[in-house]
């Protein structure tokens, strides 16, 4: 009963809201350039499917690439930090500075540097910067959270660094790293969208550009359509990463049944 309600209630609420939206637009005669009816948004999806999906694909491609780059580079730098305190002392202030500087304020500079004709590269760099830090921070925390006794045990058996890395550091850090990776997935998308806004150029051609374009032409229904696609993309990224986390961790990290 409770389980059925958990599914039925959100869907029911969604249907009710959509119905009320359509009713309200008609009843109060809200002009479509303020709030289009749901039907108009559906029409945009059908009529402009090709350009919307093309843009979604562009944004998704850049987000995914930035995300993969962030995971690889963040983990690599965290490993360097874990193996050398000197490297951490030297580099971590720069990593933190890069993180706390609002991405939107770096965007114009990055766009100037790479050139507006390569706006996609600027978007990629900015999305990567956004996603990089949570990976670095979580991987560093994870690598530092290794059980000191296990560390001693590996030393006692004269384990080499590659052995210690593969058998101890990676599995110990994995739960932390995966939490950071989940955050990074969302931030890569946010970074990509913010950068596309900042570039404000047809060269980028992503969903954020579609939103700007539709806004300039007062095609509010199209704005909504692009917005919905972005939200769905965010949900998809989160769901896939959560599934990967569950896949890797549920066996040893999941429920804590224990034999007394």
């Amino acid at each position, binding site marked *: 009963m409770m389980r059925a309600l958990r599914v039925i209630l959100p869907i029911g609420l969604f249907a009710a809201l959509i119905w009320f939206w359509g009713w309200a637009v008609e009843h109060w005669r809200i002009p479509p350039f303020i709030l289009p009816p749901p039907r108009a948004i559906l029409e945009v999806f059908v009529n402009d499917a090709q350009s919307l999906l093309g843009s979604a694909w562009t944004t998704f491609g850049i987000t995914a690439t930035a995300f993969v780059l962030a995971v690889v580079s963040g983990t690599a730098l965290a490993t360097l930090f874990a193996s050398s305190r000197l490297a951490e002392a030297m580099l971590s202030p720069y990593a933190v500075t890069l993180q706390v500087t609002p991405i939107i304020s770096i965007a114009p500079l990055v766009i100037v540097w790479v050139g507006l004709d390569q706006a996609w590269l600027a978007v990629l760099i900015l999305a990567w910067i956004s996603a990089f830090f949570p990976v670095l921070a979580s991987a560093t925390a994870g690598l530092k959270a290794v059980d000191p006794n296990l560390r001693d045990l590996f030393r006692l058996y004269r384990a080499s660094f590659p052995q210690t890395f593969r058998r101890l550091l990676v599995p110990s850090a*994995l739960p932390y790293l995966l939490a950071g990776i989940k955050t990074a997935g969302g931030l890569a998308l946010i970074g990509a969208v913010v950068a596309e806004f900042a570039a404000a150029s047809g060269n980028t051609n992503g969903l954020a550009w579609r939103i700007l374009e539709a806004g300039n032409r007062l095609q509010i229904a199209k704005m909504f359509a692009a917005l919905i696609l972005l939200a769905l993309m965010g949900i998809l990224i989160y769901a896939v990463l959560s599934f990967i986390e569950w896949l890797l961790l549920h066996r040893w*990290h999941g429920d804590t049944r224990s034999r007394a």
Partner: protein
Amino acid sequence: MTHELQLDRLGKTFQNGTPALDEISAHIGAGSFVALLGPSGCGKSTVLRLIAGLDEPTRGRVLWPSGRAALGFVFQDPTLMAWASATRNVSLPLDLAGRPAPEARARALTALEKLGLGAFAESLPRELSGGMRMRVSIARALVASPDVLLMDEPFAALDEFTRSRLNEDLLRLWAERGFTGIFVTHSVFEAVYLAQRILILGGRPGRLVADLTNPAPYPRGRDYRTSAGFNALAREILDVLEGVSG
């Protein structure tokens, strides 16, 4: 093959300047079972870490007259890899030494069976009880047939029943395998039950305050725990400890 070792005026001052150990000198014979006994904070664990080479002494040294021994170490916590099965945990020393995987696995299974955990070979640590986890930890320490087994209050967190069962298992394994056993504990009764020789540490920084021999023969059954000899030795140790803290 067992190894003797010599603690030669061993001293340790921590990096923050806290003196942990004064001059500790003792010879530990090959194949003997020695308990390091003393109140918390007297440097027992430090001695063990110095023997294991996990810390460097500030003064003095640990000598191995018959060559550097292969060591096993049992920590106070089971210290298992949460993501690995009991077998994979136990085979770790062999895996790190580069033994072929099938051999490592077979030896790990044998070690687990010796400790009564044959049915739990594929269980993860969280699926085992505290006592079972400690057995896995002991199996891991013994799987590579160490010459010297170092144990740092391994049973302190266990209930009394499990603890005495594991004490009996430990003595059985010692008799079978003939390693040199060094057992850190703050339990007088555990020290008396297990050891041939009891080194009592006390004070801050820790120093050797007594070196007692327990002549009771092995195997020591349950009756030994309630015998007159057991009580007399326990009494003697308690008096020494009283003197140290007073």
